């Protein structure tokens, strides 16, 4: 057993209102720079939709992530030889158009235009070339467009549906969408780390955050292709790649990342997970529909004394283990089985989990009347407008059972609370619903509390980062550093660039 720590996340999609506040918070803090204008380390997509960059989930095009080859995981973009051959021209990169050409407006025209018969306008200006452009796409161009024939219709996940189902999704009565906020998944087996020819990308030992060393990055952009979530970005100004850093300077001072902190719907949870790194190769080698289970198996019980003992041996602090015990992520993912990884079939073992959304129910029309009556216990789940196959394709590698359980359990909790507060349901039926999802009243109450009423401290359980100890790991003789550059980083303050 090789116990390691990962700062992990849960996004509760049933609560997401698609306001993009997270994206703006991140943009203002990190990517409001030359060369980074087009980057959205955090973005919110409308599903069904093609997302950002366009159709990023289509790995037949982008060649991201891992695939099983001869029983061994191998990068889909090719083995070492192919990567070396393509090192000067990586053929599977998204173009700027697939992201979008960043733009601003020439606002000064509004004030400086000479007097005339027409109102002056502020022309859109490319932030790359500085010249006027016609805007054709943006990072959330298809925002809220559930049934759009260009973007929604080309969602790669719709391939999981039969032609009839696919047709129905675009029927007027069934039009549906939900939001999918995305940041870097800080994967356990990150493809970007594996693909980097410069060895510039690394996964921090103490918290599992994946970072790009800006001093070692040589801009080969292999990570851009390798990441199946397209969450590493090339900065055309600095010539280096950048990605979400999970706001580690904030985490190190006990604050939640900017996108978490600003989340209006309070859909985001952050906490520590202990996992067994020895099981990793095994977990990423199973069949697609077994991936969710295998990944859950890797996550260890922080209450298990043996796990704690091994964790201590690996240098994980007592207070950190204590934080892992209070982790909301552990409860959502492992205990309640409500949260699922995004596209586990990319086999990077992503550590950002999603609670799938309860979607509007399919209404049937009889004689011009809308009928939404529930005949059966879980009718709203089974008759959701978006077929469960779609959600399974997104969150469980095609295994419908995981999605069904997560949705049914959420619904059962609703029934439980309705019985408690409104009281118009049959207690036996509610009890049966809870039993069917292998739950009980106590757990339902806990799920309800963490979903609907959590305080900030319950949503973000940030283990102490012990930077002072990390400093000691870097250098035995701290006196040498004293008075040089604080107790921050190893490098001394010097003049010049």
């Amino acid at each position, binding site marked *: 057993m090789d116990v390691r720590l990962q700062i992990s996340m849960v996004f509760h999609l049933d609560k997401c209102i698609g306001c993009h506040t997270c994206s703006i918070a991140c943009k203002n803090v990190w990517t409001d720079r030359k060369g980074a204008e087009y980057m959205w380390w955090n973005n919110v997509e409308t599903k069904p939709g*093609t997302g950002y*960059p*366009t*159709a990023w989930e*289509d790995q037949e*095009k*982008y060649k991201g992530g891992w695939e099983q080859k001869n029983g061994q995981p191998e990068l889909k973009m090719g083995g070492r030889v192919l990567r070396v051959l393509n090192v000067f*021209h990586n*053929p*599977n*990169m*998204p*173009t700027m*158009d*697939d992201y979008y050409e960043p733009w601003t407006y020439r606002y000064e025209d509004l004030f400086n235009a000479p007097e005339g018969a027409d109102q002056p306008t502020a022309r859109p200006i490319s932030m790359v070339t500085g010249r006027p452009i016609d805007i*054709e*796409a943006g990072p959330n161009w298809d925002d809220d467009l559930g049934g759009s*024939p*260009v*973007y929604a*219709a*080309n969602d790669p996940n719709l391939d999981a549906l039969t032609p009839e189902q696919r047709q129905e999704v675009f029927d007027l009565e069934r039009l549906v969408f939900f939001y999918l906020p995305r940041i870097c998944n800080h994967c356990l087996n990150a493809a970007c780390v594996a693909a980097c020819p410069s060895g510039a990308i690394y996964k921090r030992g103490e918290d599992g955050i994946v970072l790009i060393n800006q001093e070692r990055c040589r801009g080969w952009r292999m990570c851009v292709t390798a990441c199946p979530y397209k969450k590493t970005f090339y900065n055309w100004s600095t010539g280096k790649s950048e990605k979400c850093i999970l706001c580690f300077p904030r985490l190190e001072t006990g604050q939640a990342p900017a996108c978490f902190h600003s989340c209006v719907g309070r859909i985001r949870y952050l906490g520590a997970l202990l996992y067994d790194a020895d099981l990793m190769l095994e977990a990423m080698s199973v069949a697609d529909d077994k991936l969710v289970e295998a990944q859950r198996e890797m996550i260890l019980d922080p209450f298990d004394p043996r796990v704690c003992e091994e964790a201590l041996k690996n240098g994980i602090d007592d207070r950190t283990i204590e934080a892992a015990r209070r982790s909301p992520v552990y409860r959502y993912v492992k205990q309640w089985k409500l949260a699922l990884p995004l596209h586990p079939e990319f086999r990077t073992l992503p550590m950002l989990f999603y609670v799938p959304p309860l979607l509007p129910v399919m209404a049937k029309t009889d004689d011009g009347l809308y009928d939404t009556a529930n005949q059966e216990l879980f009718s709203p789940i089974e008759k959701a407008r978006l077929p469960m196959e779609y959600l399974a394709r997104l969150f469980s590698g095609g295994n419908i059972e995981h999605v069904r359980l997560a949705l049914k359990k959420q619904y059962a909790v609703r029934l439980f609370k309705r019985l408690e507060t409104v009281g118009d349901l049959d207690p036996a039926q509610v009890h049966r619903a809870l039993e069917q999802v292998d739950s009980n009243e106590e757990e339902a109450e806990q799920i309800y509390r963490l979903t609907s009423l959590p305080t900030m401290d319950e949503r973000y359980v940030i283990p102490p980062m012990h930077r002072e100890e990390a400093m000691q790991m870097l250098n035995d003789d701290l006196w040498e550093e004293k008075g040089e550059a604080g107790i921050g980083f190893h490098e001394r303050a010097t003049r010049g660039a």
Partner: protein
Amino acid sequence: MISNFSSPSVSAGFSIALTCLGAAMLLLAATLPASAQSQAAADMFEKRCYSCHNIGGGDKKGPDLKGVTGRQRTAWLHEFIKSPAALNRKGDPAAADLFKKFAPEVMSDQDMTDEEITTLLTFIEDLSKKNEQFIPAGAKLSRPIAAGDSEAGLRLFTGKTALSGGGASCMACHNISGAGLLGGGTLGPDLTAANVKYRDPELISILQNPNFPTMNSVFATHPLNDEEIVQLFALFQNAKLANPAVPAPTAGPSIEPRFLLIGFAATVMAIACLNLLWRKRLRGVRLLIVRRRRQ
């Protein structure tokens, strides 16, 4: 750029007393018979000077040296022969004129003793006085040209037959009409009309002693043998016959339009190959989706 005499004769002996030279010359005269001394000077001139200079017969790469001893002071000539470039750097007007006139040729520094230079100058002055032209004694073919020599010469030129002395084949630096698809190198001049520029004895002399700075460093230790000289000489004759219209080559290599053409074609080929190799590269996913929808 050299010396001080006026009536030359290679084979005939001449009297040192008649020329009234300085003490050094007298010393030399006492140690060597006059004819032998003259022969040594003629050999030296042929080996070291003749590839660029004439005595009578006009300018070559460098000026005709007939009467040079009357044009310049002896001390100046000594200094110039030892290092023309150094004299030019000092701002000497006569040296500057010569450099300008014969640009881009630059006479290399000669590693010669004062005695050798004096002998040489005496020889030139003598020949100039006699109003004779310098004919290199050794510049004769070892046998008459026979059928097939020109072809053998081309093989030597292109390096298909290695030179016996181990020298680099001509093609490494020179071009000649008929030397392969891409022609030869452009470091040295095109030799297609070499026998228009040089008279036969000069050409043979060059083949025997290629005393140009660049060639000397290569061929001084790897000389051609007599047979090779005959064959290459035959080749030069033939090349001119095959291309009577070729003008005498001008100084400095010219850019071959053929190279430009081949370079352009190769670039197009390379781009086509890369395009083929990476034909499945992504060319914009969104554009494709939008275009498909519009159709």
